[in-house]
């Protein structure tokens, strides 16, 4: 009895994981700030862009199709090389890693072949992480940074925001409830040109506008 419940829970967990890792991606276009590849999945496959689209975070670089996996575990992240590669070694802060390794704020991940990514978790109260290319390589599609979005993602004028938007007056928070994405801010807010009371569920291609900002989601 116990076992079966457990088994069912595992199965449902696996389902969610599968669902989230496949296709839970969108681009966050913010006027005057940048474009951000946002990944909702708990398990992110990093690799070369491929036609099959099985890669969550494709980087236009000389990498393997499935180069490594970044997993969200509780409040932290673990980097896991996909297989032992004789000629491709992965390093974190210049330390070569053999197996799954926990990532810390400020780590620089070296995927080999000159591909370097900086990992950070800017906000203390959110598990959402940010990846920024340190080397000249670009993601596919091109983005200024990658957001591994946990429950919330904060856009705002402060440096600890996941997306710092210097010119803004106040924060805009995106958060997840079940499978919905909700946007919240103080002050006027329009979703797809419909005025709301500063708190609304948004679609995967929504246009969000406020007093001094304009954001659009583009699902991938």
């Amino acid at each position, binding site marked *: 009895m116990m076992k079966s419940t457990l088994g069912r829970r595992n199965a449902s967990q696996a389902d969610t994981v599968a669902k989230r890792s496949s296709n839970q991606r969108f681009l966050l276009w913010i006027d*005057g700030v*940048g474009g951000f590849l946002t990944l909702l999945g708990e398990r992110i496959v990093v690799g070369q862009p491929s036609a099959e689209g099985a890669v969550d975070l494709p980087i236009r670089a000389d990498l393997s199709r499935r180069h490594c996996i970044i997993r969200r575990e509780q409040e932290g992240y673990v980097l896991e090389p996909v297989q032992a590669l004789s000629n491709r070694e992965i390093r974190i802060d210049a330390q070569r890693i053999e197996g799954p390794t926990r990532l810390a704020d400020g780590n620089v991940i070296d995927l080999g072949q000159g591909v370097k990514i900086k990992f950070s978790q800017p906000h203390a109260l959110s598990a959402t992480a940010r990846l920024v290319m*340190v080397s000249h390589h670009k993601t596919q599609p091109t983005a200024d940074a990658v957001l591994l979005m946990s429950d919330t993602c904060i856009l705002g004028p402060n440096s600890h925001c996941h997306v710092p938007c210097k010119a*803004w*007056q106040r924060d805009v928070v995106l958060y997840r409830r079940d499978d919905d994405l909700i946007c919240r801010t103080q002050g006027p807010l329009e979703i797809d040109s419909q005025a709301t009371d500063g708190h609304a569920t948004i679609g995967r291609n929504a246009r969000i506008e406020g007093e001094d900002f*304009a954001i*659009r989601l*583009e699902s991938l």
Partner: protein
Amino acid sequence: MSLNATKVSEEGKPLAGATKFTHPSGSRPLDGYTIKRGVGRGGFGEVYFGESDGGKEVALKLIRRNLEVELRGVRECLNLKHPNLVGLYDIKSDDMDDRWVVMEYVSGESLEALIDRHPDGMLRDDVLRWMHGMAAGVAYLHDHGVVHRDLKPGNILSDEGTVKIGDYGLAKFISCSRRSGQTESIGTIHYMAPEIANGRYGREIDIYALGIMLYEMLTGNVPFEGESVGEVLMKHLTAEPDLGVLDEPYRTVVARAMAKDPEKRFRSISEMIAQLPNAPAGGVARAAYTPADGPRVADSADEQDQVVPAVAISEETDEEPVAQAVRDGWRNIQSWWAELKLHAGVKTLLLVLVILGLIGFSEAWVPVLFSALLIYAVYWVVRAMVSPVMKASGKPPRVASPPVNGPSQEVVAQRIEAAQFVERRRQRGKHRRRHSWRDELRTTLVEKSVRDKLAELTGSMLLAALAAVPLSIVMCIFATPALGTTLQIEQAIWIALVGTVGAWAVMLPSKRWEGRHGDDGVRRFTMLVAGLAIGAMACGLAGLLMVELPDSNDFGGQGLLSGFHAADGTPTMLPYLAYFGFLFVILRWWRIADPLRTVRLSLWSTVWCVAWAWLLAQLWWFPQPWGLMLAGMIAMSTQLASPWIPHEERIGKQEADE
């Protein structure tokens, strides 16, 4: 869309940091391209990041000022190809008849952002990499007959380690923001060569800008900084950059690139770059994304407000050349003094030594100065008479020099003219505004009741008397060594009394005239009468107190007129009357009692009064230094004692006015 790009706040100013764009993400104003996001805004319009239907990432520049001539410059550059230039792909029109420039999207950070992150200067190797990249791109432009005209760190980008120069071929506005966003096309005065003021746009201006950027990369600061547009422009025109902080060969290169005279600069980019060390291998560093690196949108409110400096210069260049040269020289000395890195105490000591030296050798230089002034006065009068004739005879107006090379020279000339117009209008507006609040303040002064005025006057008179005591003591202390005698108490008393009465003589009529515009003639006549009265009083008082006023020859000659001495050598009444009468008639004394004067105690006004007193003494003998001391004392105690409206109150008034 109700929240559109031109949204303004209630105050009518654009919202601080408004990041709103005309075309939202996802729209397709231009056939074949999808807008992804707005990147920045410049004087010409907006820049977007977009993608073609085929998946090519591009930057889309929307040219709102839809002038054919403006696009001509871009069109001429459309087929230029160089790895260090941002590639231009095409010019297109949309349904609204707006023009778009489709160009290469550069994702890296700008040199501006890099300099901002290195406030103490960048690494030498990086400086050289950027410098060589920029030089290659600019040399290519020059080789194709194009002058960039707006080289500045905000226009220089890096893409995967390659330096990319942007914004070439666009007609330029000139504004004063030092740092503007990556996509800003408004020029900044910090990189503007001096000859631009005269409408000269040769390739030398690019070399000048490169010199400034080299300096800025090495030190983290532009060589000429200032509070206002005018200040920075004036420095470009007259000041020398502080090259002491640079080492060789950079010092020589910057010095030559920044020569005021374009003929003295490097003749070509290659000549300039040949003097620098070779660029180390590797590309320019690509920095990780940080918020500061994001393209910033210029605060358009500020920009618009401060458009264009050129006017200030062109007006001033019509000035009398000798006076200008003297003033420039003085300014140079001032800035040299200000930048002299010495302890404040040492500086003061130096100043005192110089002054003592000047006093000690006054016999040598005073006659020379006096003759020079006389000659200048004659020259000035002749010039004043001749110059209207010259102007009438059709001296060509100052216009932009004929196009040397590069596209749309006439556009730039037009721009400058337009900008000058804006500036003139703005200044006029400002003047009007200043006048209106000034006038209003004047009215309040006039409207003051007689009782208030009397109360104020008696207060001021009392103050003047109080101020006269310490001033006379200080002056006597300084005067005694010059005379070579000991100080007598009667002298101090006499000085204090005459000074006090003199100040009263200025303050009494000034109070009556306060806040009114009056006829100078009448006022001067009144002052003449007051001066004569003071002269008589001073003479009488001298007799009464039996003051001896020994004359020191250090301060001037015997005067042009004789008969001023009694048989025993003491001065008669005549020199007193002549000296004070003329002193009061020649200067507009009421100005230093005006409550709306610029500063309460102006050293300049005081020096001016003393200088005139000295000049007078050359014509009418009066025992010196007593005459000079009195002139200085009347000026100082009047200013100290007269009411003065502080600037804060005036500003308050001004704001209330607006």
